[in-house]
């Protein structure tokens, strides 16, 4: 839907954001009312556009066609600060947690919350973990799990996801032409690297 909307020559649109199961249109109502000489509310006009987008978009998401991005992760205890906690809670060994995490590919449903923060799913059911009640400071590049989602923190910030490793890849770089490395619709494949490889 978002892609269909982006192709429409609609003035006054400030942004189109796709969530897990929603598409949001941010718009300038005064500009649109004037440009299209509307007599109804601008909301009605935008609602019609969204309905048109819904009718016109392909029924199935073309998820399988998304690009696959490989992300190296160091799952060492120094970086995977919650591995012990997950191991105890789920009755798994750390090696099992790591393997269950990297052995499947994840679809990026959306980017939100922070610049470049990717919401990916679904983790192996054995790894389902709730968010922390009290967020702690999370290092940039930390890979985490919350519910059935996995994701990577692109910046250092307070966070509530359970941290299992860290990637040396920069997910957000304000100086790059395209500051954000991952986008919705892509697939991610994590692969383990050693601490030495991480540091080099």
């Amino acid at each position, binding site marked *: 839907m978002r892609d269909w909307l982006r192709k429409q020559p609609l003035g006054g649109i*400030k*942004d189109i954001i796709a969530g897990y199961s929603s598409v949001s249109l*941010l718009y300038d109502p005064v500009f649109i009312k004037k440009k299209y000489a509307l007599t109804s*509310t601008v909301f009605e006009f935008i609602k019609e556009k969204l309905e048109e987008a819904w009718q016109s978009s392909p029924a199935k998401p073309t998820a399988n066609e998304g690009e696959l991005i490989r992300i190296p992760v160091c799952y060492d205890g120094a970086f995977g600060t919650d591995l012990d906690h997950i191991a105890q809670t789920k009755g798994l060994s750390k090696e099992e947690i790591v393997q269950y995490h990297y052995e499947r590919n994840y679809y990026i449903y959306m980017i*939100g919350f*922070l610049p*470049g923060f990717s919401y990916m799913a679904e983790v192996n059911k054995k790894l389902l973990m709730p968010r922390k009640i009290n967020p702690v400071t999370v290092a940039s590049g930390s890979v985490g799990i919350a519910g059935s989602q996995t994701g990577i923190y*692109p910046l250092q910030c307070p966070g509530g996801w359970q941290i299992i490793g860290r990637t040396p890849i920069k997910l957000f770089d*304000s100086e790059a032409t395209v*500051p954000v490395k991952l986008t919705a619709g892509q697939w991610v494949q994590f692969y383990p690297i050693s601490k030495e490889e991480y540091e080099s």
Partner: protein
Amino acid sequence: MSLSVIKAGLLDTIQDMGRNHYGSWGINPGGSMDPYAAQVANMLVGNCNTEAVLEIHFPGPQILFEQNAMIAITGADFSPMLNDEPVPPWQPIVMRKNTVLHFPKLKWGARCYLSIHGGFRIDQWLNSYSTNLKAGAGGLGGHPLKKGDSLSPKESVIYFAGLLRKDKNSRVLPWRADTQKTYRFLNEIFVIKGNEWDQLNASAQDSFLENNFIIHPSSDRMGYQLKGVEVSMEHKFDLISSAVNFGTLQLLPNGQLIILMADHQTTGGYPRLAHVISSHLPKLAQLRTSECLQFSITDLQHAEELLEEQQKELQILQRACKDHLNELVCRALT
């Protein structure tokens, strides 16, 4: 030739009307908390409303102007002074070089805006001047103003010295913005119903509308935490994250409310009870922590009409300011 920061304020950041089109990357629009005051600041000095302004909180900064300039200060009244002379907000001011602008006393409001004729000379990041503090990009290198920073205006063709009397340091120009309509009944905030409004039972809805809420001291550019009567939903449920906006009212798990402000995150998973109408965002932005507010429901049509009215007033103001400025400059040249 520039402005230099002698003393930094609590939080001074370069802002404009926001960074649009990058929400899909998790980069939120940001921008001025009080978009009305920011636009008027630019208009008073004859700028386009897309120029950068400096958003100032209290305590404000001390800024030395190393060149003659025309400025305007709008929004909150922090008793602006040029050296030891008080100057009024909401009017353009021509000032002589080597003058210090400072803000000794908070009188009204929460944030004010400084504009300069010609606009500030700043690099854009992703097509906007707004400072994104989380990303550390945009505005002045992604950070608030600090001591020793300097700002420059873009080139101007106006010979400001010609507008000043020889014995005076500044001259307040005689046109001013009439802001009475925008900020009256400051504590009454209109909202439209949000997606999850109907999940509240009738008594919770009434309670929301009948009670005052206080803006908690932890409130900031990201959001206003409200303290007040607990609002509860009959059936608690987790929402799937979707886009949120400046003015969205979320219901937190502890029954308290938060209004998302200019630096809100792009997406959120808490129930959206209501949305503050766009034309009331300036009022909201000028409410200080520990002040109270009360909500009233209105419908989309009325909300759109109020916004249209506000924009029409701004357009009239912009034309009037341009005319006044042209006339002033022509007279000075003859």
